[in-house]
């Protein structure tokens, strides 16, 4: 080959090859949209993911959401209403200013202040009645009543600089206020499209491998997979079920997955005396709401073939559920096994409850929001029908479903919903899903079935006043057992979070679905 020809060939190759990424560059494809860099503006997964790169929390969560030291090196309850936090010495912000107690105070002041926030973190700092600065590295948080979950709550609050106490969200998005202590520095942000980050070489913790990180938003499943296959990105989250088999077989890709903190379950209207979507077999209204009878709720649970749903719809990437959170989370236990699939038992329970001829009903599910939600609810319909309950299935987009299924509308009787525990422990679903709705306590805000059980409420009260971890863990298990025996909800399965990446990379998968560039590493 003449040298001219060779140069031409080289030129062509350079022109057409995707810009070869340098060894220190990482591009991530995320399914969810990033709406802001302000870590206190919008409490939503993708935003929290980005915030975790730029900022630190007092308390950190590991891959299983167990607590570990962050900007606080230690914390302990001095008495029932005082938490002492010791801060990490020698930490500096990206702009070189040292980190201290004043930054924490400023952050907690800013959190409830952020204007126009569609979803804030105020609830996480609300238990704190007063902050006492003991010295620059010691803080006392005084609470009005015992707050055993304060460390868990604070694990979601990113610490911003004291200079940013009154910085509006726009100043974070454009950069000047996006100053944290985290492993990455902010470079640029295009809303809904991408975030560019650069390594913070002065970081106090383990130094991340990648010098430059681009996080790109790719909501379309096919697009996200194609971007990984073509090498535009090196890792994607939320691997679509349809692509799982191909990715597992691919010689150039590898996968990482972990059981999620998200339970998919059926909520049942166990409140109204007449429920809108259940009738007798002939379609005539019933005198009473059968879903108030625990035997009917148990019958529904036994009519569901969870294994078939997991194997057929999720290609095995889900885990049949019998509790609120999978094993390994605080308060969860292997005691809570899924109800056995037993159509005869279901029929028997129905007969005992006074419905030997069965029932007829319409069940509802969202068509988006959770992976394969529409397919799951469509599979459950025929399962109920087999057990003698003539069942119709309706799905709606989440935008309408969310309103219809919640108050004050409460249009449904049996509905499919999901719950991810932000705190990583069992009191979160107990308080939100099965506690009697109570505005003052902040309970039952997502109790779409309005299940109410005074004994369970009393148990939750006790949990929320117990600071001792060991004792509280036992109480959580007891309360879970009570809720599950009564079938307050019907757990279906836990999601599995999965990531797909270029062969030669590893990722430490996270139960909270967050994708951290810090834990993407070259293999070996």
């Amino acid at each position, binding site marked *: 080959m003449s040298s001219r020809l060779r140069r031409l060939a080289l030129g062509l190759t350079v*022109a*057409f*090859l*995707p*810009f070869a990424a340098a060894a220190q560059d990482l591009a991530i494809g995320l399914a969810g*949209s990033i*709406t*802001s860099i302000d870590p206190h*503006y*919008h*409490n*939503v997964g993708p935003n929290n993911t980005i915030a975790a790169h730029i900022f630190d929390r007092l308390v950190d969560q590991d891959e299983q959401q167990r607590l570990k030291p962050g900007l606080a090196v230690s914390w302990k309850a001095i008495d029932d209403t005082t938490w002492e936090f010791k801060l990490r010495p020698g930490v500096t912000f990206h702009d070189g200013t040292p980190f201290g107690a004043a930054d924490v105070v400023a952050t907690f002041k800013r959190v409830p202040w952020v*204007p*126009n*926030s*569609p*979803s*804030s973190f*105020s*609830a996480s700092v609300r238990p704190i009645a007063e902050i006492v600065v003991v010295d620059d590295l010691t803080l006392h948080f005084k609470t009005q009543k015992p707050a055993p979950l304060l460390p868990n709550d604070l694990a979601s609050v990113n610490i911003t600089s004291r200079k940013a106490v009154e910085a509006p*969200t*726009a100043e974070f998005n454009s950069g000047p206020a996006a100053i944290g202590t985290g492993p990455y520095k902010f470079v640029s942000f*295009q*809303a*809904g*499209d991408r975030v560019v980050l650069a390594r913070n070489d002065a970081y106090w913790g383990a130094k991340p491998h990648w010098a430059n990180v681009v996080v*790109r*938003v*790719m*909501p*379309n499943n*096919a*697009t996200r997979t*194609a*971007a990984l*296959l*073509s*090498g*535009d990105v090196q890792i994607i989250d939320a691997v679509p079920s349809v692509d799982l088999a191909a990715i597992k077989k691919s010689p150039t890709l590898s996968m990482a997955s972990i059981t999620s903190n998200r339970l998919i379950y059926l909520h049942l209207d166990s409140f109204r005396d007449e429920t809108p979507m259940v009738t007798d077999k002939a379609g005539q209204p019933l005198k009473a709401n059968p879903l108030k009878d625990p035997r009917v709720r148990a019958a529904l649970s036994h009519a569901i073939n969870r294994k078939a749903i997991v194997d057929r719809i999720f290609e095995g990437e889900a885990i049949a559920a019998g509790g609120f959170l999978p094993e390994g989370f605080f308060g969860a236990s292997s005691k809570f096994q899924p109800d056995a699939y037993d159509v005869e038992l279901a029929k028997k329970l129905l007969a005992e409850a006074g419905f030997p001829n069965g029932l007829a009903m319409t069940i509802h599910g969202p068509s*988006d929001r959770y992976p394969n939600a529409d397919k799951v609810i469509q599979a459950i319909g025929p399962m109920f029908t087999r057990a003698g309950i003539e069942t119709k299935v309706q799905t709606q*987009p*989440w*935008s*309408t*479903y*969310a*309103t219809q299924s*919640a108050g004050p509308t409460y249009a449904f009787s049996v509905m499919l919903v999901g*719950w*991810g*525990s*932000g*705190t990583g422990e069992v009191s*979160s679903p107990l308080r*939100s899903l099965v506690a009697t*709705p109570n*505005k003052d306590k*902040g309970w039952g*805000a*997502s109790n779409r079935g309005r299940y109410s059980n005074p004994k369970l409420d009393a148990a939750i009260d006790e949990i929320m006043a117990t600071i001792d971890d060991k004792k509280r863990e036992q109480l959580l298990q007891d309360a879970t057992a009570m809720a599950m025996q009564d079938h307050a909800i019907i757990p279906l399965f836990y999601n599995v979070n999965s990531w797909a990446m270029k062969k030669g990379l590893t990722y430490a998968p996270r139960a909270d679905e967050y994708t951290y560039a810090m834990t993407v590493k070259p293999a070996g």
Partner: protein
Amino acid sequence: MTAYVIRRLLQAALVLFVMSLLVFFGVYLIGDPVEIFVAADADQVERARAIAALGLDKPIWEQYTSFVQGALGGDFGRSFVFGLPAVTLILQRLPATLELAFAAVFLTVVIGLPLGLWAGLRPDGFAGRTILAGSILGFSLPTFWVGIMLILVFAVQLGWLPSNGRGPVAEFLGIKSSLFTVDGWRHLILPAINLALLNIALMIRLVRAGVREVLPLDYIRFARAKGLSWGRIVGVHVMKNIMLPVVTVLGLELGAVIAFAVVTESIFNWPGMGKLIIDSIQRLDRPVVVAYLMVTVAIVIFINLVVDVVYSLLDPRIRLKDLDH
């Protein structure tokens, strides 16, 4: 002509008003936006705070009146989700969409016009028949499928082009655009082709039909008898007379690709307005949905007005007057 333009602008204002009313109340009826974007584990106090922070605690008619008041002053409200003024958000996305739209229309003209001309001048030749048959493919293949195939072949299999997204932007004459960078073009080619395909097919058919209609007419024969060159006959006499429908359709297409490139923008993850509107509808981000539709209606009305004016320039017989004169 001035009176005509003024009247058209008044009509446009009316359309915009009716549009805002329909969309505002339509989105309100779909559902409660706070249910969508408040964190799932938010308690009642936090929900009430979010509702009040976004002004959703007021009665709907009051929300609408304050929207109209703001809109008259150019303020269409803030996005619930991004916290930015809706118009700012849309204008941020506009350059990406315009790039894609102009590239697609450019491809339509440089590919569709000559092919259509050829097919019209030599309708029975092999090339002419092939072009016509090819245009049927352009009509019948669904956009989302072609898009995925383009990605599979050129990005995944051959690895020549990036699979999605917009390339880096550069500034030239004060305009920031990815058209001024090589990588920008590499990102643009596939989505532009995908968006242009249907339009190219339409253009081929339109031009071919026009040419075949015009060729047998007397003035063409006279021109030939006069001994004019073939090039001049086609380039001036034929072209000028088939331009009316071509300009109409190009105008409509430009409006359509700006406003409704939703499918292509989604598949190619193009950060334009189409992707914004789809995301916003799913999130019930009402200020963005309303402002978006207002902006696109305004753009489409403007393009149509321009088309009407171009008409009168192309064909002196057309006067811009209202029919009832």
